[in-house]
């Protein structure tokens, strides 16, 4: 996937450099870009490490399981079939809670086990509507604390790196809502 992206970018860059007749600058741009990549990585490193530390504390302090318990009633209504299987449902709640807290390392393995368990239940070759909804929820962001975006802002000297929080919450809530509604709509349409 990324190899294809790399080649496409290079071809487009070379082609537009030739077409636009600009001062043939892509060679210099390559080196400048690599340096920028390193600068960005360095500028977010502090905030990224701090937040990984906080994530570790959240996990060990049992916040993940507490949030999962809180989300159960809501998720039970979205995933009525999976809720009948206790193992599957607690994996599912764990994955979505970990996403919400920004615990990426915890979220992905839980999500993979949820998907496999759900697929076992449906049995058939196709995938169930609930599995589709679960994957859609995982492609939409549910993060409460956008630590990476805030780290970039802090690295560039923003007045208040976290002042984007309300805007992020509103946008991701609308995005998740749109995903759920779209999945439900398509599920209803394809059933008929």
């Amino acid at each position: 996937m990324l190899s294809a992206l790399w080649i496409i970018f290079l071809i487009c860059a070379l082609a537009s450099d030739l077409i636009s007749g600009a001062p043939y600058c892509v060679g210099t741009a390559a080196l400048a870009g690599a340096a920028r990549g390193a600068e960005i990585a360095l500028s977010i490193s502090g905030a990224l490490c701090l937040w990984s530390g906080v994530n570790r504390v959240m996990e060990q302090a049992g916040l993940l399981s507490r949030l999962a318990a809180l989300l159960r009633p809501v998720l039970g209504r979205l995933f009525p079939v999976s809720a009948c299987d206790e193992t599957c449902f607690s994996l599912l709640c764990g994955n979505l809670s970990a996403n919400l807290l920004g615990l990426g390392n915890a979220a992905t393995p839980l999500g993979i086990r949820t998907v496999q368990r759900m697929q076992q239940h449906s049995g058939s070759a196709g995938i169930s509507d609930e599995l589709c909804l679960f994957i859609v929820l995982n492609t939409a962001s549910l993060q409460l604390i956008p630590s990476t975006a805030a780290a970039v802002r802090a690295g560039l000297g923003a007045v208040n790196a976290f002042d984007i929080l309300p805007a992020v919450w509103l946008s991701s809530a609308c995005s998740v809502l749109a995903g759920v509604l779209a999945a439900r709509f398509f599920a209803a349409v394809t059933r008929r």
Partner: protein
Amino acid sequence: MIEFVIPLMLLAVSAAALHRKLDVFTLLTEGAQDGVRLLASVAPTLIILMTAVTMLQRSGFFSLAAPVLAPACHLLGLPEELAPLLLIRPVSASAALGVGAELMRVYGVDSRIGRTAAVMLACSETTFYAMSVYLGAAGVRRSRYIFPAALLADLTGYAMAGISVRLFFG
């Protein structure tokens, strides 16, 4: 108000850990080591993809493609400077991080474009990556309506990023 969300959260999380008789400081430093590992895994991708992205930017590709990309941005109510981010966000997290950081630096981190870029980064996921991981785990080839639904969620998020930045920052 919002200034206190993070400090209060740090305090609450640490207090909850102390209540459970956990060694908070050691947990923080252990977690920070995870951060170092995370950085080590992100940095190489970030550097290589930023090389390609910067070549693309300086070659004038985006001004050549503007007639195609600008209408898409206008449709979502976003400034057309954000077109590169719109394209790369669902495909690669590292590249999007690089493009977003570059937009914030060029137009100002506290400008409308800079803030919208940050919100776009934060309110969405690397859709193609997440889809391929979970579809692979389920072992299915037909993804039914997952792609259009996920894309609709992404586009809603991007459009709302523009709207909410205007709403909260005028």
